[in-house]
């Protein structure tokens, strides 16, 4: 609305503010462009120029492309860090006038409306950051073209990377502007920006860990690409997905929700900044806050992070559940006092601020009570067998799952996960699960922090109506020497099911054509290893033997699960793989593009794996 009613006068004021702000930002723009050039295109050029010296093989176009994309994606992490630092510097440079009474006297007495003043400086800050990004990414593209690298890499991928960085930079700058308007001094602005960007992801992480620790069946797992983890932290959100990718560092590993959230939040923050700036009192300059809400939120977040975090550490170290509360109280109180003292520059308002601490304490007690009493029946709520279509199982510390990527876009299109569809098995799993739930309730209710930091055993019920019920329990490997527990017993029974084993290993999805070569390692003689390239028939025979021995428990992906482990088989997959009709293609929903397989490709052979050993002997591979 504000933007659409921009009058001619406002437009002129915006233009003049923008051009003056740009004039003052030329030095900053040039500095960023230079530093970014050194950190990004220059290292890329040096790296590419030396790529030939670093390899014994002839550099083909594919190898140039591989070297190029590797450099681009890693260096873009460095470039993003640099630009994020400049976001903070530029925001302070453009908006610190709000934080000095003298400069407010000047700027607010000018015949320039607050909206054009804000937008003019905001756009100047964006230009200061965008021009170096555009320039340096253009150089990176030109370098790619000059090495004959396909436009798919040198233009499209680079452009996508650049646009992603520009979006996150816009979000980080808008967030900084919002904080500049809410705060009364540049010091408060900077510590608020840093505080929320560090504390919010930590809060999400410790809250997830706390809830998972307290409530049986719940396990909140967050990865660095998670939208929730960085939902209020644009600086972290601009950086985490770059380093969190399990493929190539530098590829922003995000989804539509992540992009949608940041586009929406950026627009909301900009609209809120405009609205608040129009209401902002000039006399707030040099006081702590113009609008106290960020201070309240930041103090609450830091109090919660320190309290819950310290409580969990204390409880984990001592293994005494009630020490959690000791840590919670001391950690949260200390954090509250420190944050209040920093924001208020002293202790004068400390007494009054404890009302907010009381609100935190009350909110936490309610949350603890709800979780400790089963979160409204979450702990016991299971579907009935006739509602369930399938159950997928994940035992994370035993997980050796293989991941299938589409070769064109490097996207995950499937994960080999143990899945039960047989109704008898579903009924049996539900019985075991109900027994576990009842045991948990009998043992300790209301629940207390259990202090376990194990991996989890997860049962995911896929319902016929499209719904999903997921329950996870702390779990360590069921064959360790630790005392038996009800979860271990349940896991042991489930993982012995034939359907589980047939769906747990990539072995059961492989066609002979997908295997390029096989390496054999003889564990009895470390020096003995053989690399072989069998024909299709031999590969088919070996795969069949491995499957049968796997079902008998004599072959496994995990060496801990086979006894008398005498040999390992490493399968080297084709790259890329053209799918043929079979179990893997069906599993991938009839996918027709090329794929590649990532993950565990080692198979452990026990002394009792007669069929496999027979095939190896038949073809004389052990000699």
């Amino acid at each position, binding site marked *: 609305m504000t933007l659409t009613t921009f009058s001619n006068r406002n437009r002129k*004021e915006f233009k003049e503010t923008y051009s003056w702000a740009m004039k003052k930002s030329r030095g900053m723009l040039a500095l960023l462009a230079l530093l970014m050039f050194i950190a990004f295109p220059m290292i890329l050029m040096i790296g590419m120029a030396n790529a030939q010296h670093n390899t014994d093989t002839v550099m083909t176009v594919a190898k140039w492309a591989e070297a190029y994309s590797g450099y681009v994606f890693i260096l873009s992490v460095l470039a993003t860090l640099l630009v994020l630092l400049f976001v903070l510097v530029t925001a302070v440079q453009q908006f610190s006038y709000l934080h000095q009474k*003298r400069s407010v*006297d*000047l700027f*607010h*007495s000018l*015949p320039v409306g607050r909206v054009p003043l804000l937008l003019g400086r905001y756009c100047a800050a964006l230009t200061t950051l965008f021009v170096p990004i555009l320039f340096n990414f253009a150089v990176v593209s030109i370098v790619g073209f000059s090495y004959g690298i396909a436009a798919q890499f040198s233009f499209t991928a680079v452009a996508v990377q650049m646009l992603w960085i520009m979006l996150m930079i816009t979000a980080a700058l808008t967030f900084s502007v919002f904080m500049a308007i809410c705060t009364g001094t540049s010091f408060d602005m900077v510590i608020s920006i840093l505080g929320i960007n560090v504390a919010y992801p930590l809060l999400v992480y410790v809250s997830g860990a706390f809830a998972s620790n307290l409530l049986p069946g719940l396990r909140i797992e967050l990865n660095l690409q998670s939208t929730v983890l960085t939902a209020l932290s644009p600086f972290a959100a601009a950086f985490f997905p770059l380093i969190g990718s399990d493929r190539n560092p530098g590829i922003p590993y995000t989804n539509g929700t992540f992009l949608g959230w940041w586009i929406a939040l950026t627009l909301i923050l900009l609209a809120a900044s405009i609205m608040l700036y129009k209401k902002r*009192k*000039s006399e707030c300059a040099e006081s702590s806050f113009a609008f106290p809400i960020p201070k309240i939120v930041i103090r609450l977040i830091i109090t919660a992070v320190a309290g819950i975090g310290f409580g969990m550490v204390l409880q984990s170290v001592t293994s005494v559940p009630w020490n959690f509360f000791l840590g919670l109280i001391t950690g949260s109180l200390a954090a509250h006092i420190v944050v209040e003292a920093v924001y208020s520059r002293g202790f004068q308002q400390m007494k009054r601020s404890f009302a907010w601490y009381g609100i935190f304490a009350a909110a936490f007690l309610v949350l603890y009570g709800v979780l400790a009493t089963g979160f409204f029946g979450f702990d016991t709520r299971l579907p009935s067998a006739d509602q369930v279509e399938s159950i997928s199982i994940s035992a994370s510390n035993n997980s050796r799952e293989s991941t299938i990527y589409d070769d064109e876009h490097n996207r995950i299109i499937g994960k080999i996960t143990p899945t039960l569809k047989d109704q008898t098995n579903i009924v049996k799993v539900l019985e075991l699960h109900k027994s576990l739930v009842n045991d948990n309730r009998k043992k300790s209710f209301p629940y207390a922090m259990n202090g376990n930091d194990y991996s989890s055993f997860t049962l995911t019920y896929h319902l016929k109506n499209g719904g999903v019920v997921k329950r996870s329990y702390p779990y360590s490997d069921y064959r360790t020497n630790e005392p038996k527990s009800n979860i271990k017993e349940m896991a042991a029974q489930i993982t012995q099911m034939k359907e589980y084993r047939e769906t747990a290993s990539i072995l059961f999805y492989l066609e002979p054509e997908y295997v390029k070569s096989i390496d054999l390692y003889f564990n009895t003689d470390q020096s003995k290893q053989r690399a072989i390239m069998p024909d299709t028939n031999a590969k088919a025979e070996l795969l069949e033997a491995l499957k049968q021995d796997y079902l008998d428990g004599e072959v496994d992906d995990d060496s801990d699960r086979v006894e008398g482990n005498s040999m390992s088989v490493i399968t080297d997959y084709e790259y890329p793989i053209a799918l043929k009709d079979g179990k893997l293609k069906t599993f991938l929903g009839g996918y027709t593009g090329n794929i590649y397989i990532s993950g565990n490709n080692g198979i452990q052979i026990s002394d009792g794996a007669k069929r496999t050993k027979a095939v190896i002997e038949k073809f004389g591979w052990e000699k």
Partner: protein
Amino acid sequence: MIEAINLTKKFGATAALDGISFSVSSGSLFGLVGSNGAGKSTFLRTLAGIYAPDGGEILVDGVSPFENSAVKSKMFFISDYPYFISQATLNDMADFYMRIYPNWSKKRYEELCSLFPISAKAKIGNMSKGMQRQAALICALATQPSYLLMDEIFDGLDPVMRQLLKRIVFNEVSEHGMTVVIASHNLRELEDFCDHIGLFHKGGVVFERDLDDLKLGINKVQAVLKPMPDLSAFAPLDLVKTEIHGSLINLVVRGSKEDILDHINSLDPVFVEVLPLTLEEVFISEMEVAGYDLDNILK
């Protein structure tokens, strides 16, 4: 014309302006005087559109200046500590204002630069307090404002520069009808400079009057009376202050010189002298009436 109508501005629980009402007519030189914290600077900032009023209104030519670029483009405010953009020279500041003020005159700017002895190419941040005020004044006058608002402008200026400032501003007022509102504690300078005075105290306006009327309307009387009559003999006079030392009486009295003399002569004085008050004496007398005098402070 500037009109303050029941204007209120609060900082927390403190009312810096507590429902003040008065007007400043166009083309006048209006001096704001008052005790520390009386609300003079707050009034100027509200008038300049920096502060939004918390109550009542302030109007410039019938329009509120807050968030009103059209009004602000006719106005220039020089604060008590003028702010200049970091590392800026006078020429940089001129470039800045030139983009924003529609009436900016490059010719006038160059004329003013030649009048004031400061370098347009030197960084203002390195200049003395007085030179910074000169720089602010050059920029202000080059925007050719209809309303010039100045807070403690004389502070730091040497006597020659003060005279130069006054002369230039007088010319602007007489030739272009510029309205000037100036807040200062330097009453001696205001006395020569302003035609109207507003006295502020604790967020209120004690009075607002033409300076000549003000000075002519209040007089200092020294008389020797033998014997000294009872104080009730002076009751018909509008007494502001009375001091008796034996047969010597010192009075500060509101009213015309002639009326005061007539009354004192009727008491058959040995000696009588009626003198006009300086602005500073008027200020002290009026502030005493308002309870702001040394005796009260030291109590």
